[in-house]
């Protein structure tokens, strides 16, 4: 039914562009890096002649441009690479495969003005942030572990989940409202070691895009953002190794051709070593303890012929924490993506993906009285079929996506002596399907449109017993649904629309509207995320979360696109948001849905971004002014209250200074208003203890956070193929005591008074990392 609907829409779109003038030919091909053969994502391909046209390469480095018969100048440009300029005589459909040389591989490249692109001004896309992997490697981070998720927190509109934490909030959304994709597979828990590090090993990553708004129609399923991370394909020309040794972890990556210029592989491994020190201890209770995480990223691709390329990629990561004879806790993600790129004809590009991913955790208590082992699993099978059709003014994208979810909330097994009873909470099955179509349309030289629609269907399926509850959480009725039967269906239409209008090549205004819906939700009533956070599907009780966002922006480039400036304002309406009743018991509770409250939210803000892209000194300044609120009938007397992550001001400054060929210095500075928290307004006594009386929810503020991080990288003297570098870092160089939590205690000096005691997590922390490449 949804499929028929979407086919009709696709047909309508196709009609719109199916009429082509005569004597037009298509230039298509793939753009790669000259030294590694890695495809370049988002490179600009421009044809100039009697008429001109430009496009960007897609996620697989592919492009197609259609123009009238004639002679053109082809210019291919990509940040950090020398331009490729060629003359093209278009008298028939042409295929080219071009390779660009990285600017730093060339002797003396004058980076000319037209090498920099004004894509940020021109494209209709709004709310998109691209992370440059080069600057990611320079930005200072905690303990020297470069991290994608910590770097995106330095961008306007993205707020950190807390000190040193990889959790993030985008434009007022919750942490579970981010769609985090690694080679198209959903990564449910992107954190290691309770959030201090992320699952993304920067060595293995090629491209990172974050959509804060204006999500294109091919993405769906989460309200707030899309973080699309793509792994390296691997060098298809020669074997390369790189790695590093840091305070926390060591890394090693190997890549090389399977068949030269036709296929390649990449394998990357990272592991921490704190527990190796533990193991050195003579004490058996210490050397039996574990504290580690590791990641493996692997990918291979093979070009079967000019029309077909296959890719297989996977991620496997795990955290282990344990104290001998007391407890063990481990968690991790597994993702596997199999893809086939097929070029039907030069204008029609398709990709088919088969994806498997899971997230699981185990908690085990080992003492005899309360011995138990609890396991939980979220598992998805996903099929995606995506088409891109390139015509001269339109890039049409359409496709289908079907995901089957299986959630095993908890399985508790125990020993005979244990006082805990075994328990298996019913599995939940859901089917998410979507059909989408979108069109990027260069209406005129000045007006660009990106519009589309996504039809999202969700079905909660049997087998299972599904209950409805009254207001006080008692079961009213329970229905048993047989295996494979649909129980509850939701259908949502998600319009997506963005427009840009160019005043000139350097100035534009953009506007966008988009609706997103979400059918898988995290339940956690703790104020910080934990590996045991529980996932639930939309159901008879939980309705799909819905977000509508409008945004307006002004984009300006200066000095031949070397400086970029943007200002965006947004307003977001959120429906069917989830919170919890007082004394909610979320874990191992079959009636967990009786513990939930439903409400609405709103978020609005202004984001300013100023960036210097090249030169000896580059970097950016970001500023966010924002407000995020929620409203639940049962909380705060039914009035709006600020979300915990509502921080009025957020400032980030990143500076990278390339002093000479050997030394690079960088720094990042952040300032943010404290979290919105609930402070007591009074106190009383119960059973001889001091209790606190609360009036307004989240009406108080934690103190502000301010931090300066520094790092310096020393490149080793160039010894031919072999390169090495040292990175020295200082986290929290001002040694400021930033707030982590606040506790209320009796004043030690005057016990009849109450005082607030703040705990800070990290003082000044130095780090050193050694990296190598050959």
């Amino acid at each position, binding site marked *: 039914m949804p499929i028929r609907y979407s086919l009709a829409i696709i047909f309508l779109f196709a009609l719109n562009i199916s009429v082509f003038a005569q004597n037009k030919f298509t230039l298509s091909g793939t753009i790669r890096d000259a030294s590694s053969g890695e495809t370049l994502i988002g490179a600009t391909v421009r044809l100039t002649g009697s008429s001109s046209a430009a496009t960007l390469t897609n996620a697989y480095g592919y492009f197609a441009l259609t123009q009238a018969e004639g002679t053109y100048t082809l210019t291919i440009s990509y940040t950090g690479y020398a331009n490729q300029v060629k003359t093209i005589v278009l008298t028939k459909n042409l295929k080219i495969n071009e390779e660009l040389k990285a600017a730093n591989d060339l002797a003396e490249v004058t980076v000319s003005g037209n090498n920099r692109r004004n894509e940020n001004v021109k494209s209709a896309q709004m709310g998109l942030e691209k992370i440059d992997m080069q600057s990611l490697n320079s930005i200072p981070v905690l303990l020297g572990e470069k991290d994608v998720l910590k770097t995106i927190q330095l961008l306007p509109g993205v707020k950190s989940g807390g000190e040193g934490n990889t959790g993030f909030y985008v434009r007022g959304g919750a942490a579970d409202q981010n769609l985090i994709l690694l080679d198209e597979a959903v990564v449910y828990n992107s954190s290691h070691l309770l959030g201090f590090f992320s699952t993304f090993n920067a060595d293995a990553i090629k491209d990172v895009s974050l959509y804060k708004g204006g999500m294109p129609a091919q993405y769906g399923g989460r309200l707030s953002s899309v973080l699309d991370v793509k792994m390296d394909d691997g060098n298809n020309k020669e074997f390369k190794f790189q790695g590093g040794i840091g305070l926390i972890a060591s890394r090693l990556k190997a890549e090389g051709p399977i068949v030269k210029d036709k296929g390649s592989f990449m394998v990357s491994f990272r592991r921490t070593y704190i527990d190796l020190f533990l193991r050195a201890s003579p004490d058996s209770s210490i050397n039996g303890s574990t504290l580690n995480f590791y990641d493996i990223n692997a990918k291979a691709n093979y070009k079967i012929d000019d029309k077909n390329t296959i890719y297989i990629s996977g991620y496997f990561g795990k955290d282990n924490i344990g104290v001998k004879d007391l407890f063990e806790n481990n968690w991790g993600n597994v993702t596997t993506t199999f893809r086939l790129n097929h070029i039907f004809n030069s204008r029609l590009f398709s990709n088919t993906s088969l994806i498997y991913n899971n997230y699981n955790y185990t908690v085990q208590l080992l003492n005899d009285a309360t011995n138990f082992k609890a396991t939980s699993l979220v598992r998805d099978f996903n099929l995606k079929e995506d088409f891109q059709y390139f015509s001269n003014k339109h890039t049409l994208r359409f496709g289908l996506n079907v995901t089957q979810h299986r959630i095993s909330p908890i399985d508790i097994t125990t020993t005979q002596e244990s*006082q805990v009873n075994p328990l298996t909470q019913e599995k939940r099955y859901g089917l998410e399907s979507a059909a989408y179509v979108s069109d990027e349309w260069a209406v005129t030289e000045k007006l660009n449109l990106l519009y589309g629609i996504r039809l999202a269907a969700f079905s909660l399926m049997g087998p299972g017993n599904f209950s409805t509850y009254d207001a006080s959480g008692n079961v009213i009725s329970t229905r048993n649904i047989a295996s494979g039967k649909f129980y509850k269906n939701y259908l949502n239409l998600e319009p997506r629309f963005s427009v840009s209008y160019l005043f000139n090549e350097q100035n534009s205004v953009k506007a966008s509207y988009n609706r997103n819906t979400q059918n898988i939700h995290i339940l956690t009533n703790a104020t910080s995320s934990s590996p045991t956070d529980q996932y639930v599907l939309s159901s008879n009780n939980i309705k799909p979360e819905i977000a509508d966002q409008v945004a307006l922006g002004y984009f300006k480039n200066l000095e031949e696109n070397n400086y970029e400036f943007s200002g965006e304002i947004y307003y977001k309406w959120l429906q069917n948001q989830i919170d919890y009743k007082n004394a909610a018991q979320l874990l191992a509770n079959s009636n967990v849905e009786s513990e939930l409250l439903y409400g609405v939210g709103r978020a609005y803000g202004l984001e300013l971004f100023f960036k210097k892209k090249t030169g000896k000194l580059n970097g950016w300044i970001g500023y966010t002014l924002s407000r995020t609120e929620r409203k639940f009938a049962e909380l705060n007397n039914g009035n709006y209250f600020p979300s915990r992550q509502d921080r009025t001001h957020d400032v980030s400054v990143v500076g990278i200074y390339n002093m000479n060929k050997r030394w690079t210095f960088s720094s990042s500075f952040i300032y943010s208003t404290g979290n919105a928290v609930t402070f007591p307004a009074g106190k009383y006594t119960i059973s001889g203890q001091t209790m606190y009386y609360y009036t307004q929810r989240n009406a108080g503020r934690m103190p502000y956070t301010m931090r300066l991080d520094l790092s310096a990288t020393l490149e080793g003297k160039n010894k031919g193929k072999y390169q090495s570098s040292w990175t020295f870092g200082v986290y929290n160089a001002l040694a400021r005591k930033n707030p982590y939590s606040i506790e209320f205690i009796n004043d030690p000096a005057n016990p009849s008074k109450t005082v607030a005691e703040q705990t800070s997590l*990290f003082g000044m922390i130095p780090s050193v990392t050694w990296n190598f490449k050959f």
Partner: protein
Amino acid sequence: MKQLIFILCIVVCFSSCKKIISIDTENAPPQIVIEAKINDRLIDQQIRITKTVGYTDASIYPTVSGATVSVSDSRGNNYVFRETAAGVYTNRMRGVYGVTYTMNVVAEGKTYTASSKMPNLVRMDSIGIISNTFFGNERKTTAAYLADPANETNFYRFTLNRNGINSNRIYVSNDRLTNGNKLRIQLYFNAEDDEDEDLLSGDKVAVEMEGIDSNVFDYWYALSSQSGRGPNQGTTPANPTSNISNDALGYFSVNTYQKITATVK
């Protein structure tokens, strides 16, 4: 040397530190607080009525005198509580298992009511001292032993006292995951200030156990899940849902009561 490496790792990674800060909060007007408990022994049962003070005030809580306090039960009995000390209302009586009691308080012109059902008696069999090893350190803790009945849902609350000082931790449990089993409930002592929390030989410990009803369990459970009772720890703090009407703080609990003492060897 034993723990040095581990401690070093932890200290380097989490060189946390604490300091006293001032916060910006309003001082709320006084609210009524009722703590009413009736147990299964024939004693002077007490209902205390006090008021809240502002956050910045000294912790001296005003008592509420002159209230009309009575309790009735599902069998038609009525018990009048008389003010025997400022804000303390008492009546010599005994709660009966399985009977529902309703409290009625009229204080300062407002009426507050609540009901609570006395659960069936579950006996604490004994208490004991068990020792666990944490990173090579032996730590002694108190444990209560009891047999949970399989045919009903039970809720328990414990208090722990060491050498006359109450632990400031809240200990409540239900039998959702442990129904019908012999239970060993471990009670870790938590001192108000940073004094030594380990049990030492010769320490006198006392454990009180109450069988409580589900509303009273929810009250204490909400408080315990806000452990640390400050931002960024546990759940967002809120007033626990009281079983008393008219927005009074506190609770009305009719519960079983048992106390066992022991000396740490």
